[in-house]
């Protein structure tokens, strides 16, 4: 091992990155684009459900109920229908996801004892529909208990007390915002792109341009090439991690309760995993196109779909859950959420850290053994 040779490879790699527009775009633009897409555009929270109401009663009571909907941040009344056809139109066209129809004689029936309202749901987005229905039930239940209380008070009776109640305390993500658990995961996504995608090009590019033959005719060792080529991407990956983490906290207001040291240590491990994977693919495939596609399929897609980044793993079919266990990204995402939202002590996610460490070791060895200084 010779330090000057490693430094020579590193310097050359940095110069080439700095002159390659495509690499620069990936390094500087991708983290920001992903962060803003997942920070703003992707929102799994169901709020402001567009609502259509058809009040066939038109009394003080029916208007009170509709006001309760209007006051809730979960609904937004976008249309006051004048007949059923308009209700159907609203749902068909997708203008509204939910329609509330108050029947005629609503107030009379309510005062006489009991009545009901109709809710029509657009379940083509089943998740939003079922959440919308839950909100509707909650609004209606709150309204009906107010009616009960008023009824009792009018008669000088004690208001009825429900026998059972839930007192909830929401931990870690107090406002139940999906953004807060998605945004830290973007760090993993950025690393998959910057780490695996960019490194998957490095060796393949040397083969395709014919520079590999000259390179391996010199005394530079395979390990020196590997270190010299990966260190620049490691530094870039760590900088991107820092930028993403700082923006998550400062710009998006994601809580950060763990330790920055642990964040960078675990990120370094995950980065070694994806860098080595990309490098290994580059050595084996010898073609930039093949290697970069492999790298995206092996890192970006599983990180996106199967790591728990967007879709909860415990909701997946059991077989798919097993598959997620072989993905390093799964462990890294768990660690990220622990550090950002929970601030749990390291021992609570030591097994995930160990898993990443094993992956890093195995992939570094694979990458090192792949490159031979031969043309065959």
């Amino acid at each position, binding site marked *: 091992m010779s330090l*000057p040779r490693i430094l*020579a490879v590193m310097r050359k790699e940095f110069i080439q990155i700095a002159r390659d527009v495509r690499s620069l775009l990936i390094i500087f633009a991708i983290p920001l684009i992903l962060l803003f897409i997942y920070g703003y555009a992707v929102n799994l929270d169901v709020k402001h459900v567009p609502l259509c109401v058809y009040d066939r009663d038109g009394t003080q009571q029916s208007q009170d109920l509709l006001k309760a909907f209007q006051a809730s941040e979960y609904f937004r009344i976008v249309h006051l229908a004048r007949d059923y056809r308009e209700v159907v139109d609203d749902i068909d066209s997708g203008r509204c996801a939910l329609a509330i129809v108050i029947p005629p004689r609503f107030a009379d029936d309510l005062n006489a004892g009991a009545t009901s309202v109709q809710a029509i749901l657009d379940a083509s987005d089943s998740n939003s529909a079922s959440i919308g229905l839950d909100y509707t039930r909650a609004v209606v239940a709150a309204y009906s208990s107010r009616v009960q209380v008023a009824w009792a008070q009018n008669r000088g009776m004690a208001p009825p007390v429900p026998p059972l109640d839930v007192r909830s305390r929401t931990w870690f993500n107090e406002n139940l915002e999906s953004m807060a658990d998605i945004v830290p995961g973007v760090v993993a996504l950025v690393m998959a792109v910057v780490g695996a995608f960019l490194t998957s090009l490095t060796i393949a590019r040397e083969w395709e341009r*014919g520079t590999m033959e*000259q390179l391996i*005719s010199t005394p530079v060792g395979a390990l020196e090439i590997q270190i010299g080529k990966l260190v620049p991407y490691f530094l870039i990956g760590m900088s991107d991690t820092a930028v993403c983490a700082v923006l998550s906290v400062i710009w998006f207001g994601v809580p950060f309760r763990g330790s920055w040291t642990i964040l960078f240590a675990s990120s370094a491990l995950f980065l070694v995993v994806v860098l080595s994977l990309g490098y290994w693919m580059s050595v084996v495939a010898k073609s930039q196109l093949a290697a970069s596609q492999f790298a995206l399929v092996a890192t970006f897609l599983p990180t996106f779909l199967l790591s728990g980044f967007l879709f909860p793993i415990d909701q997946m079919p059991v077989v798919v859950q097993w598959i997620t266990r072989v993905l390093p990204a799964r462990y890294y995402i768990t660690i990220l959420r622990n550090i950002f939202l929970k601030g749990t002590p390291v021992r609570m996610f030591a097994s995930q850290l160990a898993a990443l460490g094993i992956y890093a070791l195995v992939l570094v060895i694979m990458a090192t053994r792949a490159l031979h*200084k*031969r*043309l*065959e």
Partner: protein
Amino acid sequence: MNGNEFAVTVEKLTKRFGKFTAVNGISFETRRGEVFGFLGPNGAGKSTTIRILCGLLEPTSGSATVAGLDVATQPEAIRQRIGYMSQKFSLYNDLQVIENLNFFAGLYSVPSSEIRERAEWAVRMAGLEGREHAMTASLPVGWKQRLALGCALLHRPPIVFLDEPTSGVDPVSRRQFWALIHQMSGEGVTVFVTTHYMDEAEYCNRLVLIDRGAIVAMGTPTELKRGSMKGELLLVECEPLGAGLEALRAAPGVEDAAVFGRALHAVVRDARAAAGPIREALGAHQVTVSRVEPIPPTLEDVFVALTAGRAAREAVRS
């Protein structure tokens, strides 16, 4: 041991790629300090041989040493002692001239105190003064080749392997390049160079003619020209050339004939005696002969004579 005398020794070296035999049991030696030419058409096995000697390919069988080191077992030690210029231009086009030089100086472990001086030397040698910060991609082919040579010489290797260094280079740059090769040789460097330009063989101290993986002749240019031609050579200028060639091949006393530029060359046993009958034979086929005269053979004649004979023998055998 002759380790001091020879820079390269090759013994029954064979290289197969699947069923294709690229190099077939060749043996030769290269002496220290000489310009050793490896001459043959494309696909003859020149690049394969040079790549084996540089430790880039493993031999299928046979053995070879470079600077007294075994190519199969000591490739890394060999790489310290050689400079290599591959057939395809293989420096970094997206680096500046000086960045390429610094990079290779680093890889060859040139001491940092000497890097500047060696890079300046390479720039001067390649005639690239004032172009140090030019992007390598922007250089003409001939300049790129000189830069590649400079990169291969930064660490003062005792042996350099140049694989078709003048391929695709204009004639003036080719001559400049050969002047550099002789300058290196004058400084005691062994130069192992391949080419498919027959005229360049004249620049070599010694050379090997290789065809389809096998050596067809070996020696100094003079030895080859003298010893390898059976018979003498006649230059025949005539019109039309195609009909002239056919008639010439059928003419009495002619052993072989080939087109060379805008004329024909005929191999005959006795040049003086054959001239007359050849004029008559061509005239009988309505070919106008403007000139018939004996000429000294070039290496191209030698090569054609040797490979034609070999092809004929192979045809008979199969």
